[in-house]
Protein backbone atom coordinates (compact mmCIF):
# COMPACT_ATOMS: atom_id res chain seq x y z
CA UNK A 1 0.00 0.00 0.00
CA UNK A 2 1.40 3.37 -1.07
CA UNK A 3 0.95 6.28 1.38
CA UNK A 4 -1.51 9.01 0.48
CA UNK A 5 -0.09 11.78 2.69
CA UNK A 6 3.42 12.91 1.76
CA UNK A 7 5.99 15.25 3.29
CA UNK A 8 5.94 18.87 2.05
CA UNK A 9 8.28 19.62 -0.87
CA UNK A 10 10.55 21.68 1.33
CA UNK A 11 11.31 18.66 3.54
CA UNK A 12 12.46 16.74 0.49
CA UNK A 13 14.66 19.57 -0.72
CA UNK A 14 16.05 20.16 2.78
CA UNK A 15 16.80 16.44 3.09
CA UNK A 16 18.86 16.48 -0.11
CA UNK A 17 20.48 19.83 0.68
CA UNK A 18 21.39 18.64 4.17
CA UNK A 19 19.70 21.60 5.85
CA UNK A 20 17.01 19.76 7.79
CA UNK A 21 16.85 19.08 11.51
CA UNK A 22 17.72 15.52 12.47
CA UNK A 23 14.18 14.74 13.66
CA UNK A 24 12.43 15.86 10.47
CA UNK A 25 15.13 14.14 8.38
CA UNK A 26 14.34 10.93 10.23
CA UNK A 27 10.64 11.33 9.41
CA UNK A 28 11.44 12.02 5.75
CA UNK A 29 13.87 9.11 5.34
CA UNK A 30 11.50 6.70 7.12
CA UNK A 31 8.55 7.81 4.97
CA UNK A 32 10.71 7.18 1.89
CA UNK A 33 10.97 3.50 2.84
CA UNK A 34 7.19 3.32 2.46
CA UNK A 35 6.89 5.61 -0.54
CA UNK A 36 8.31 4.94 -4.02
CA UNK A 37 6.92 8.26 -5.19
CA UNK A 38 8.94 10.30 -2.70
CA UNK A 39 12.03 8.16 -3.37
CA UNK A 40 11.71 9.20 -7.02
CA UNK A 41 11.37 12.85 -6.10
CA UNK A 42 14.40 12.65 -3.80
CA UNK A 43 16.38 11.00 -6.60
CA UNK A 44 15.36 13.83 -8.95
CA UNK A 45 16.50 16.46 -6.48
CA UNK A 46 19.81 14.73 -5.87
CA UNK A 47 20.58 14.27 -9.55
CA UNK A 48 19.72 17.90 -10.23
CA UNK A 49 22.13 18.88 -7.45
CA UNK A 50 24.72 16.69 -9.21
CA UNK A 51 24.06 18.47 -12.49
CA UNK A 52 24.58 21.86 -10.83
CA UNK A 53 27.72 20.48 -9.23
CA UNK A 54 29.08 19.55 -12.65
CA UNK A 55 28.48 23.14 -13.80
CA UNK A 56 30.48 24.61 -10.90
CA UNK A 57 33.56 26.68 -11.72
CA UNK A 58 36.81 24.85 -11.01
CA UNK A 59 39.13 25.57 -8.11
CA UNK A 60 42.77 24.48 -7.96
CA UNK A 61 43.28 21.17 -6.20
CA UNK A 62 46.53 19.37 -5.57
CA UNK A 63 45.73 16.30 -3.51
CA UNK A 64 45.60 13.54 -6.12
CA UNK A 65 49.11 12.17 -5.59
CA UNK A 66 48.63 12.05 -1.83
CA UNK A 67 45.41 10.10 -2.29
CA UNK A 68 46.85 7.68 -4.85
CA UNK A 69 49.76 6.92 -2.53
CA UNK A 70 47.39 5.76 0.21
CA UNK A 71 44.25 4.34 -1.36
CA UNK A 72 42.50 2.09 1.16
CA UNK A 73 40.48 -1.05 0.43
CA UNK A 74 37.06 -0.38 -1.04
CA UNK A 75 33.83 -1.18 0.76
CA UNK A 76 31.70 -3.95 -0.68
CA UNK A 77 27.89 -4.12 -0.67
CA UNK A 78 26.55 -6.04 2.33
CA UNK A 79 23.34 -7.99 2.64
CA UNK A 80 20.79 -5.70 4.33
CA UNK A 81 20.14 -6.42 8.00
CA UNK A 82 16.65 -7.77 8.71
CA UNK A 83 14.33 -5.26 10.36
CA UNK A 84 14.55 -5.92 14.11
CA UNK A 85 11.22 -4.37 15.10
CA UNK A 86 9.44 -4.10 11.75
CA UNK A 87 10.10 -0.37 11.38
CA UNK A 88 11.88 1.41 8.49
CA UNK A 89 15.68 1.05 8.56
CA UNK A 90 16.44 4.75 9.25
CA UNK A 91 14.36 4.52 12.44
CA UNK A 92 15.71 1.08 13.38
CA UNK A 93 19.17 2.64 13.64
CA UNK A 94 17.92 4.69 16.59
CA UNK A 95 16.21 1.80 18.33
CA UNK A 96 19.10 -0.61 18.71
CA UNK A 97 18.95 -4.41 18.66
CA UNK A 98 17.26 -5.09 21.98
CA UNK A 99 13.57 -5.32 22.81
CA UNK A 100 11.75 -2.01 22.69
CA UNK A 101 11.74 -0.26 26.04
CA UNK A 102 8.39 1.49 26.32
CA UNK A 103 7.67 4.03 29.02
CA UNK A 104 4.15 3.98 30.45
CA UNK A 105 2.39 7.30 30.00
CA UNK A 106 -1.32 6.82 30.59
CA UNK A 107 -3.87 4.04 30.04
CA UNK A 108 -3.45 2.95 26.41
CA UNK A 109 -0.48 5.27 25.86
CA UNK A 110 3.22 4.47 25.94
CA UNK A 111 6.27 6.03 24.35
CA UNK A 112 9.95 5.70 23.54
CA UNK A 113 12.02 8.88 23.54
CA UNK A 114 14.80 8.79 20.97
CA UNK A 115 18.26 9.95 21.90
CA UNK A 116 18.77 13.27 20.21
CA UNK A 117 21.10 16.04 21.18
CA UNK A 118 19.63 18.71 23.47
CA UNK A 119 19.25 21.36 20.84
CA UNK A 120 16.96 19.09 18.86
CA UNK A 121 13.20 18.88 18.94
CA UNK A 122 11.71 16.05 21.03
CA UNK A 123 11.37 12.89 18.91
CA UNK A 124 9.31 9.97 20.16
CA UNK A 125 7.74 6.72 19.08
CA UNK A 126 4.18 6.77 20.44
CA UNK A 127 1.94 3.75 20.95
CA UNK A 128 -1.80 4.44 21.21
CA UNK A 129 -4.24 1.60 21.95
CA UNK A 130 -6.74 0.41 19.35
CA UNK A 131 -10.06 2.25 19.45
CA UNK A 132 -8.97 4.95 21.90
CA UNK A 133 -9.58 8.64 21.44
CA UNK A 134 -6.87 11.17 22.18
CA UNK A 135 -8.48 14.25 23.76
CA UNK A 136 -8.52 17.52 21.89
CA UNK A 137 -5.26 19.33 22.24
CA UNK A 138 -3.23 22.03 20.59
CA UNK A 139 0.41 23.01 20.65
CA UNK A 140 2.53 26.10 20.23
CA UNK A 141 4.38 24.78 17.18
CA UNK A 142 4.11 22.02 14.60
CA UNK A 143 3.52 18.38 15.44
CA UNK A 144 4.79 16.08 12.69
CA UNK A 145 3.69 12.45 12.63
CA UNK A 146 4.64 9.42 10.55
CA UNK A 147 2.30 6.46 11.04
CA UNK A 148 4.31 3.24 11.43
CA UNK A 149 1.42 0.83 11.98
CA UNK A 150 -2.31 0.97 12.56
CA UNK A 151 -4.06 4.23 11.81
CA UNK A 152 -6.27 7.06 13.02
CA UNK A 153 -8.74 9.71 11.90
CA UNK A 154 -8.68 13.34 12.89
CA UNK A 155 -10.20 16.59 11.63
CA UNK A 156 -7.95 16.58 8.57
CA UNK A 157 -8.47 13.01 7.36
CA UNK A 158 -7.49 9.37 7.67
CA UNK A 159 -3.87 8.40 8.30
CA UNK A 160 -2.39 4.93 7.91
CA UNK A 161 1.00 3.28 7.60
CA UNK A 162 3.49 5.54 5.82
CA UNK A 163 1.32 8.65 5.99
CA UNK A 164 2.75 11.95 7.19
CA UNK A 165 0.58 14.38 9.15
CA UNK A 166 1.59 17.90 10.01
CA UNK A 167 -0.66 19.44 12.67
CA UNK A 168 -0.51 23.18 12.98
CA UNK A 169 -0.80 24.28 16.59
CA UNK A 170 -3.45 26.86 15.81
CA UNK A 171 -6.09 24.22 15.16
CA UNK A 172 -6.94 21.98 18.12
CA UNK A 173 -7.29 18.39 16.99
CA UNK A 174 -8.19 15.04 18.42
CA UNK A 175 -7.31 11.63 17.14
CA UNK A 176 -9.59 8.61 16.94
CA UNK A 177 -7.42 5.49 16.76
CA UNK A 178 -8.72 2.83 14.38
CA UNK A 179 -10.13 -0.31 15.96
CA UNK A 180 -8.41 -3.68 15.64
CA UNK A 181 -4.75 -2.70 16.10
CA UNK A 182 -2.81 -0.12 18.07
CA UNK A 183 -1.46 2.90 16.24
CA UNK A 184 2.30 3.31 16.47
CA UNK A 185 3.79 6.49 15.10
CA UNK A 186 6.94 8.57 15.05
CA UNK A 187 6.27 12.08 16.31
CA UNK A 188 8.48 15.15 16.05
CA UNK A 189 7.14 18.16 17.92
CA UNK A 190 8.47 21.68 18.26
CA UNK A 191 7.33 21.99 21.85
CA UNK A 192 5.44 20.17 24.55
CA UNK A 193 1.75 19.83 23.83
CA UNK A 194 -0.96 21.76 25.65
CA UNK A 195 -4.23 19.99 26.47
CA UNK A 196 -7.34 22.07 25.81
CA UNK A 197 -9.27 22.45 29.07
CA UNK A 198 -8.32 21.24 32.50
CA UNK A 199 -9.95 17.80 32.16
CA UNK A 200 -7.33 16.44 29.81
CA UNK A 201 -4.67 15.02 32.01
CA UNK A 202 -3.81 12.17 29.66
CA UNK A 203 -1.61 14.46 27.61
CA UNK A 204 0.55 15.55 30.46
CA UNK A 205 2.92 12.87 29.16
CA UNK A 206 3.95 15.20 26.41
CA UNK A 207 5.35 17.59 28.96
CA UNK A 208 8.04 15.22 30.07
CA UNK A 209 10.57 14.73 27.35
Amino acid at each position, binding site marked *: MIPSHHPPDEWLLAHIAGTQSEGVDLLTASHASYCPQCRDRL*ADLQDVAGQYLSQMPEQN*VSGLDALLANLPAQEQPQAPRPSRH*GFPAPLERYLGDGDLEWTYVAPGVKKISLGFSQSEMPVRVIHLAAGMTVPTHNHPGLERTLVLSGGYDDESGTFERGDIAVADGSQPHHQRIHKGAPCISLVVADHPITPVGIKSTVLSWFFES
Partner: protein
Amino acid sequence: MVSSQRITIGHLEVWLSADPDVLLKAVAANADRAAFAQLYAHVAPKIKSFLMRATRGDVTLSDELTQEVMLRVWKRAPLFDRSRGTAMGWIYGIARNARIDHFRRKRPQVEPTDPMLVDEGPQPDETAQLHQRAERVRHAVTTLPEAQAFALQHAYFEGRTLAEIATATDTPLGTVKSRVRLAMVHLRAALEGQT
Protein backbone atom coordinates in the same frame (compact mmCIF):
# COMPACT_ATOMS: atom_id res chain seq x y z
CA MET B 1 28.66 6.59 -26.22
CA VAL B 2 31.76 4.41 -26.11
CA SER B 3 32.47 2.90 -22.73
CA SER B 4 35.95 1.49 -23.17
CA GLN B 5 37.94 4.64 -23.49
CA ARG B 6 41.15 3.58 -21.91
CA ILE B 7 44.44 3.67 -23.76
CA THR B 8 47.98 2.82 -22.74
CA ILE B 9 50.87 5.14 -23.47
CA GLY B 10 54.09 3.39 -22.49
CA HIS B 11 53.34 2.11 -19.01
CA LEU B 12 50.78 4.87 -18.36
CA GLU B 13 47.12 4.06 -18.52
CA VAL B 14 44.99 7.00 -19.53
CA TRP B 15 41.25 7.46 -19.65
CA LEU B 16 39.97 9.52 -22.53
CA SER B 17 36.47 9.77 -21.17
CA ALA B 18 35.47 12.52 -18.79
CA ASP B 19 32.01 11.02 -18.27
CA PRO B 20 31.64 10.56 -14.50
CA ASP B 21 29.18 7.67 -14.95
CA VAL B 22 31.71 5.76 -17.05
CA LEU B 23 34.63 6.54 -14.75
CA LEU B 24 32.81 5.75 -11.52
CA LYS B 25 31.70 2.43 -12.95
CA ALA B 26 35.32 1.52 -13.68
CA VAL B 27 36.44 2.62 -10.22
CA ALA B 28 33.71 0.42 -8.75
CA ALA B 29 34.13 -2.65 -10.92
CA ASN B 30 37.93 -2.90 -11.12
CA ALA B 31 39.29 -0.58 -8.43
CA ASP B 32 40.71 1.22 -11.46
CA ARG B 33 43.24 3.81 -10.27
CA ALA B 34 43.61 5.45 -13.68
CA ALA B 35 39.85 5.95 -13.84
CA PHE B 36 39.93 7.36 -10.33
CA ALA B 37 42.70 9.79 -11.29
CA GLN B 38 40.62 11.00 -14.22
CA LEU B 39 37.51 11.28 -12.07
CA TYR B 40 39.52 13.29 -9.53
CA ALA B 41 40.75 15.67 -12.22
CA HIS B 42 37.20 16.10 -13.46
CA VAL B 43 35.21 16.51 -10.23
CA ALA B 44 37.54 17.48 -7.36
CA PRO B 45 37.93 21.11 -8.62
CA LYS B 46 34.12 21.41 -8.71
CA ILE B 47 33.68 19.83 -5.30
CA LYS B 48 36.13 22.32 -3.89
CA SER B 49 34.12 25.10 -5.48
CA PHE B 50 30.95 23.77 -3.79
CA LEU B 51 32.72 23.50 -0.44
CA MET B 52 34.09 27.03 -0.76
CA ARG B 53 30.49 28.22 -1.03
CA ALA B 54 29.32 25.96 1.79
CA THR B 55 32.11 27.13 4.13
CA ARG B 56 31.82 30.79 3.07
CA GLY B 57 35.28 30.82 1.54
CA ASP B 58 37.39 28.77 3.97
CA VAL B 59 40.18 27.51 1.66
CA THR B 60 41.95 25.25 4.15
CA LEU B 61 38.75 23.55 5.24
CA SER B 62 37.56 23.23 1.61
CA ASP B 63 40.83 21.54 0.61
CA GLU B 64 40.64 19.18 3.55
CA LEU B 65 36.98 18.27 2.89
CA THR B 66 37.60 17.83 -0.85
CA GLN B 67 40.24 15.20 -0.05
CA GLU B 68 37.83 13.52 2.35
CA VAL B 69 35.08 13.49 -0.29
CA MET B 70 37.34 11.97 -2.96
CA LEU B 71 38.59 9.36 -0.50
CA ARG B 72 34.98 8.38 0.23
CA VAL B 73 34.22 8.27 -3.50
CA TRP B 74 37.02 5.74 -3.92
CA LYS B 75 36.03 3.68 -0.89
CA ARG B 76 32.31 3.64 -1.52
CA ALA B 77 32.32 3.38 -5.33
CA PRO B 78 31.30 -0.33 -5.27
CA LEU B 79 28.14 0.72 -3.36
CA PHE B 80 27.03 3.12 -6.11
CA ASP B 81 23.89 1.80 -7.78
CA ARG B 82 23.38 3.45 -11.11
CA SER B 83 19.78 2.22 -11.26
CA ARG B 84 19.05 4.82 -8.60
CA GLY B 85 20.57 7.89 -10.17
CA THR B 86 23.54 9.60 -11.76
CA ALA B 87 27.17 9.49 -10.66
CA MET B 88 27.23 13.26 -10.14
CA GLY B 89 24.12 13.11 -7.94
CA TRP B 90 25.78 10.40 -5.88
CA ILE B 91 28.98 12.42 -5.60
CA TYR B 92 26.99 15.51 -4.59
CA GLY B 93 25.46 13.39 -1.79
CA ILE B 94 28.90 12.37 -0.56
CA ALA B 95 30.10 15.99 -0.56
CA ARG B 96 26.97 17.13 1.29
CA ASN B 97 27.43 14.37 3.88
CA ALA B 98 31.07 15.31 4.41
CA ARG B 99 29.92 18.86 5.07
CA ILE B 100 27.25 17.70 7.55
CA ASP B 101 29.65 15.28 9.28
CA HIS B 102 32.10 18.10 9.71
CA PHE B 103 29.50 19.80 11.89
CA ARG B 104 28.92 16.52 13.70
CA ARG B 105 25.27 16.05 13.15
CA LYS B 106 23.70 12.63 12.67
CA ARG B 107 22.02 12.32 9.33
CA PRO B 108 19.18 9.90 8.79
CA GLN B 109 19.32 8.70 5.17
CA VAL B 110 17.00 7.04 2.72
CA GLU B 111 17.96 3.37 2.75
CA PRO B 112 17.28 1.75 -0.62
CA THR B 113 18.06 -1.72 0.76
CA ASP B 114 15.65 -1.36 3.69
CA PRO B 115 13.93 -4.77 4.13
CA MET B 116 10.76 -2.82 4.98
CA LEU B 117 10.84 -1.02 1.61
CA VAL B 118 7.47 -0.75 -0.14
CA ASP B 119 7.72 -1.00 -3.93
CA GLU B 120 5.32 0.01 -6.60
CA GLY B 121 5.21 -3.50 -8.02
CA PRO B 122 7.10 -4.72 -11.07
CA GLN B 123 9.26 -2.00 -12.60
CA PRO B 124 9.45 -1.51 -16.34
CA ASP B 125 12.69 -2.53 -18.00
CA GLU B 126 14.71 0.57 -17.32
CA THR B 127 18.14 -0.46 -18.50
CA ALA B 128 17.94 1.45 -21.75
CA GLN B 129 16.56 4.53 -20.04
CA LEU B 130 19.26 4.60 -17.38
CA HIS B 131 21.91 5.64 -19.87
CA GLN B 132 19.79 8.60 -20.78
CA ARG B 133 19.15 9.78 -17.26
CA ALA B 134 22.15 12.11 -16.98
CA GLU B 135 21.17 13.61 -20.33
CA ARG B 136 17.57 14.05 -19.18
CA VAL B 137 18.69 15.69 -15.96
CA ARG B 138 20.89 18.09 -17.90
CA HIS B 139 17.96 19.03 -20.12
CA ALA B 140 15.55 19.40 -17.19
CA VAL B 141 17.97 21.81 -15.54
CA THR B 142 18.46 23.96 -18.63
CA THR B 143 14.70 24.44 -18.97
CA LEU B 144 14.18 25.43 -15.34
CA PRO B 145 13.14 29.10 -14.93
CA GLU B 146 15.92 31.18 -13.40
CA ALA B 147 14.20 32.14 -10.16
CA GLN B 148 13.42 28.48 -9.43
CA ALA B 149 16.96 27.38 -10.25
CA PHE B 150 18.30 30.10 -7.97
CA ALA B 151 16.25 28.82 -5.01
CA LEU B 152 17.44 25.24 -5.52
CA GLN B 153 21.08 26.26 -5.87
CA HIS B 154 21.01 28.31 -2.70
CA ALA B 155 19.70 25.30 -0.79
CA TYR B 156 22.11 22.84 -2.40
CA PHE B 157 25.33 24.77 -2.16
CA GLU B 158 24.98 27.24 0.63
CA GLY B 159 23.10 24.99 2.99
CA ARG B 160 20.39 27.56 3.48
CA THR B 161 16.84 26.75 4.56
CA LEU B 162 14.01 28.30 2.56
CA ALA B 163 13.43 30.82 5.35
CA GLU B 164 17.10 31.82 5.20
CA ILE B 165 16.93 32.11 1.40
CA ALA B 166 13.89 34.34 1.74
CA THR B 167 15.73 36.62 4.16
CA ALA B 168 18.99 36.64 2.20
CA THR B 169 17.25 37.52 -1.06
CA ASP B 170 14.62 39.81 0.43
CA THR B 171 11.84 37.67 -1.02
CA PRO B 172 8.63 36.61 0.78
CA LEU B 173 8.90 33.07 2.18
CA GLY B 174 5.70 32.08 0.39
CA THR B 175 7.27 33.05 -2.93
CA VAL B 176 10.39 30.97 -2.26
CA LYS B 177 8.25 27.98 -1.26
CA SER B 178 6.14 28.24 -4.36
CA ARG B 179 9.27 28.46 -6.56
CA VAL B 180 10.55 25.24 -5.01
CA ARG B 181 7.20 23.56 -5.49
CA LEU B 182 7.04 24.64 -9.16
CA ALA B 183 10.63 23.52 -9.71
CA MET B 184 9.82 20.08 -8.37
CA VAL B 185 6.73 19.77 -10.55
CA HIS B 186 8.82 20.78 -13.56
CA LEU B 187 11.58 18.30 -12.74
CA ARG B 188 9.19 15.43 -12.11
CA ALA B 189 7.51 16.07 -15.46
CA ALA B 190 10.88 16.19 -17.21
CA LEU B 191 12.23 13.08 -15.50
CA GLU B 192 9.08 10.97 -15.21
CA GLY B 193 9.87 7.29 -15.33
CA GLN B 194 13.57 7.99 -15.54
CA THR B 195 14.69 7.16 -12.03
